[in-house]
């Protein structure tokens, strides 16, 4: 009996991913990438199961997951937002954009809104410095963002429901 809050199907899927990498602990990062792609995030029980399957301590899996910014232990929102804090965006005031997003959504960086619609992250440069300050929603770039327009963007029809 596995003491898990994850479904039997999910358990089977994780074991399948590990098996595809020969349960090799050296493949941990690849395994975690695939697992996150499957489930959207890496909750505690998933990490613990990966650790058990690979025969390594949970601390090692959790160490990798918590070190790399790409991995997330919390579910992402339906529409993930990233605000660029790269140099160009920063000097053009992206911190104010970020503050406004936080204010409008009532969440901090790394969090997801209670309704699960938005999650908020920061990133460093999307290669659109000419449009600074930028943010992305669902991977779509919003350029020359004025903090005053943030609420309008977030309340637009495409993000409803």
């Amino acid at each position, binding site marked *: 009996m596995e003491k898990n809050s994850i479904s039997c199907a999910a358990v089977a899927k994780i074991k399948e991913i590990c098996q595809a990498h020969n349960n090799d602990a050296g493949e941990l990062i690849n395994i975690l990438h695939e697992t996150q792609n499957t489930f959207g995030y890496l909750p505690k029980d998933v990490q613990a199961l990966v650790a058990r399957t690979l025969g390594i301590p949970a601390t090692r899996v959790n160490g990798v997951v918590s*070190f790399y910014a790409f991995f997330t232990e919390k579910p992402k929102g339906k529409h993930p937002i990233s605000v660029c804090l790269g140099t160009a965006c920063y000097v053009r005031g992206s911190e104010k954009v970020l503050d406004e997003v936080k204010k409008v959504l009532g969440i901090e960086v790394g969090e997801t809104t209670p309704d699960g619609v938005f999650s908020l992250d920061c990133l460093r440069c999307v290669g659109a410095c000419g449009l600074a300050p930028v943010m992305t929603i669902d991977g779509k770039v919003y350029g020359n963002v004025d903090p005053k327009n943030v609420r309008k963007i977030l309340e637009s029809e495409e993000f409803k429901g």
Partner: protein
Amino acid sequence: MEQNKINITIDNRPVSVEPGTTVLDAAKSCGIEIPTLCHINLKGTCVNNHPASCRMCVVEVTGRRNLAPACATACTEGMEVHTNTMRVLNARRTVLELILSNHPHDCLVCPKSGNCELQDLARRLKIHESPYEGGEKSCHEVEKTVSIVRDMNKCILCRRCETMCNEVQTVGAIGARNRGFDTTIGPAFGMKLSESECTYCGQCVAVCPVGALTEMDNTGRLISDLANPDKTVVVQTAPAVRVAIGEEFGYPAGTIVTGKLASALRKLGFNYVFDTDFTADLTIMEEGSELLERLQRFLAGDKNVALPILTSCCPAWVNFFEHQFPDMLDLPSTARSPQQMFGSIAKTWWAEKMGIPREKLVVVSVMPCLAKKYESGRDEFKTDGNPDVDYSLSTRELAALIKEANIDFRSLEDSDFDKPLGESTGASVIFGATGGVMEAALRTAYELHTGKTLEKVDFTQVRGLEGVREATVDMDGFELKVGIAHGLGNARRMLEDIRSGKSTFHAIEIMACPGGCVGGGGQPLHHGNVEIIDARRKAVYEEDRNKPLRKSHENPYIKTLYEEFLGKPLSHKAHELLHTHYFNKSEEE
């Protein structure tokens, strides 16, 4: 110039070393002490942490563009190393200043003050100001468990504890999490240590260079009990304490200070000064009898008998197999550890003899160990909520208390432990070293099994510091195969062999700490010097040689205890008071 050796110069001095030698070790061999912080290497054991992360040991190598970490740079032929150039000294100073910029400056009230490797370096490098103040500081909650206190604000991320927990002990309870200023060493998912697989072996504490990992201090509790006239306070002290506590008072490692220790305990105000060695002898009576009982069933053809029998004196080892090998809980001896047998006998047989009610009797133990603190609080060792052993102090805590109480340890006269719970044989003293419990058991098991007198009591084949040792002992025709492992990683290998059916041993002794209890997590800090542990180990055997009685079953008060109270080994009463059972603590439960 020597053949097959690598010739280099360090600070213009020629040195010849074996291939593979690090610059750090080469320098040490010619008397140059390069400062280190993250590095620790207990030669002869598997303890070796050299992540080269702290950069304290940087040196200049002629022809190399950047500075080289001496701990992780191998010597190459013709290398010219400089350990004290202006560039090196400046780099070291900057490194240390940066480490200190994210380290609390509360040395005056830090439990590690005076014994801190970071503090020593700051003094050695004459860091008198802190140029990088004002930046971000790590902010972590302090966790106090029954055994270990974790203050990650003081952690310098040397990773020694992580190496100990993962590579040496293979427990995997702690590791690095997060990044940058948020980095902390702890259990997965930010759990508490008390919720993790931690065995409380305390080896992380034993190697922590700073005040990030320390023991739960019970000295305050002891002082108030000693000051309470309503309480009778008795103390038991473990074998490994008497060969180590002297170091805290300036004696060389391995000095036997048993007599002064007893005097110091008496001066502190304990009503009775007893010895865990007494119940180590008792453990041998019970565990040895259990071994013989299982062997006799085995020899009679019983295929279901649980063999090999595993020793059960070490509480960290007990925690380890409860977490990691829950399918093998029938193998360990059910005998309680000497600490717990002492508490049990003191609060029954002895207390009744003396007419002291249980609630007025306080049993304190002094142990080389931090897991003993946890063990004394286990529910199965309580009667109506009253623990057999009220609490446990480490060797370090006792030394600190002796100093606090204005006792000049070095000028104390020798004295003996009180009777009856202070009488012991040489067999019990060697419990403090790896291989000792097995040797003590062999001395008694041989005589009980064969009915003959054992002429040569020294089983030198089970002694030593190798991680795993084995020996075959002739039990008058029967070849008894015994194994010994110290360090939980070595224990794991032995248990995996048992699980896969490869093991051929009849009996295995396991101690969690490298070297056994002499290298325990509660001992005076060795700061990476394995010779200290070996000197203590040798002292334990010297103390054994000096004892008139060297077999547990010859202890006269053990005989009295059985005659008056317990009947015989493994009797119903002995089971009730001296044996225990184990629990599945794995996650899959």
